[in-house]
C-alpha cells in the first residue's frame, strides 16, 4: 500500500492546519525530489555534472544585472521610458535576456511606492536577478503583503507617508516584476558604477528605499 503523502498541500486543503514555513512544510516533496535525483544518478540518466551545470546557470543571474538596468534608467530618461514601456526589450538592450514571458517594470515616485509579492508561490525575475531571498518565499511575507503591505514594509524599516499610494503587485501568473526605485539626487553628475552600487536586491522588490520619502 502506498503511504499517503503527508505534506500534500496540507495548508491549502485544511485552513485550520498551522502554517509551516520552509522545507518542513514540504517534507514529502523534498524527500521525493532527493530520492528521484538519486535514482536518476544510479541509473546513469543524469551525471553529477548535469546537475552542477543547471545550478550554475540558475545562479549566474544576479542583483547587479538589475542594478545596472536601474542605474541606466536613472541616468537616461529615454532609456527609462523604454524600460517602463517594455521591460524585456530594455533589459535586452543592456545585454540581459529575460527568459520568463515578460518583465514589467514599475516606477516608484514621490506619490507611489510599489512592492512585489507572489502570493501563490515564489515567482520572481530569476533569469535577471537569480534566486529570491528566503523571506520572499516565506508564507508570512506572501500572505501578509497583499493584506497589510504597510505593516510588512514597516518591519523592513520602510515608512510610506500616508498620502502616498502603496501599490502591491501580485506576481501570480506569467509576468515578472522589477521595481525602479526613486532616483537619489544628482544622478547625472554621479558615475554610473557608483549608482549601480547603491541598488540592493530589496530595493528591486520594494522592501528598501534608496532615500526615505519625504
Amino acid at each position: 500500500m502506498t503511504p499517503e503523502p503527508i505534506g500534500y498541500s496540507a495548508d491549502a486543503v485544511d485552513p485550520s492546519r498551522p502554517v509551516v514555513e520552509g522545507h518542513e512544510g514540504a517534507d514529502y516533496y523534498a524527500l521525493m525530489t532527493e530520492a528521484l535525483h538519486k535514482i536518476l544518478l544510479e541509473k546513469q540518466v543524469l551525471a553529477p555534472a548535469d546537475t552542477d551545470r543547471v545550478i550554475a546557470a540558475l545562479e549566474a543571474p544576479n542583483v547587479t544585472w538589475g542594478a545596472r538596468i536601474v542605474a541606466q534608467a536613472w541616468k537616461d530618461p529615454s532609456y527609462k521610458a523604454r524600460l517602463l514601456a517594455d521591460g524585456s526589450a530594455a533589459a535586452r538592450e543592456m545585454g540581459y535576456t529575460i527568459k520568463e514571458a515578460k518583465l514589467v517594470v514599475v516606477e516608484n515616485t514621490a506619490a507611489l511606492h510599489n512592492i512585489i509579492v507572489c502570493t501563490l508561490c515564489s515567482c520572481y525575475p530569476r533569469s535577471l536577478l537569480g534566486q529570491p531571498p528566503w523571506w520572499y518565499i516565506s508564507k508570512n511575507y506572501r500572505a501578509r503583503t497583499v493584506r497589510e503591505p504597510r505593516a510588512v514594509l514597516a518591519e523592513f524599516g520602510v515608512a510610506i507617508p500616508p498620502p502616498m499610494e502603496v501599490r502591491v503587485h501580485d506576481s501570480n501568473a506569467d509576468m515578472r516584476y522589477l521595481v525602479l526605485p526613486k532616483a537619489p539626487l544628482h544622478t547625472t553628475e554621479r558615475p554610473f558604477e557608483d549608482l549601480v552600487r547603491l541598488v540592493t536586491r530589496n530595493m528591486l522588490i520594494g522592501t528598501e528605499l534608496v532615500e526615505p520619502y519625504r
Partner: protein
Amino acid sequence: MPRFSPGDRVTVLDLGKPGHVRIPWFIRHKTGRIERYCGAYPNPEDLAFGRPGLPVIDLYRVHFPQTALWPDYAGAQGDTLEIEVYDHWLEPAGPLT
C-alpha cells in the same frame, strides 16, 4: 482581439476549479478594472498536468483598490493592488452606480 480593454470594469469569477489555478481566493468575486493586456499564454491549469495548455488564453493585469479586497483594510484609503487574471476567470462588470 482581447475581450477587454484598459479601464474596463471586470469581476473575477470563482470557477471552483481544484489544483494548480493561478487565481488566489482573495480576488474572487471582487471587481476591479483592467490595467493592461499582457498577451496570450498557455493555460497553467492544463500545463500543470503535462498538457499543452492550448489554445492560449488572454491574460490581463487587473487593478483593485485595497478597500475593495479587504473591507477592514487598515492602510491608506488610496492603496491599490494589481494582479494577473486569465480571461476565462473574468466577466464584465457594470458601470459604477
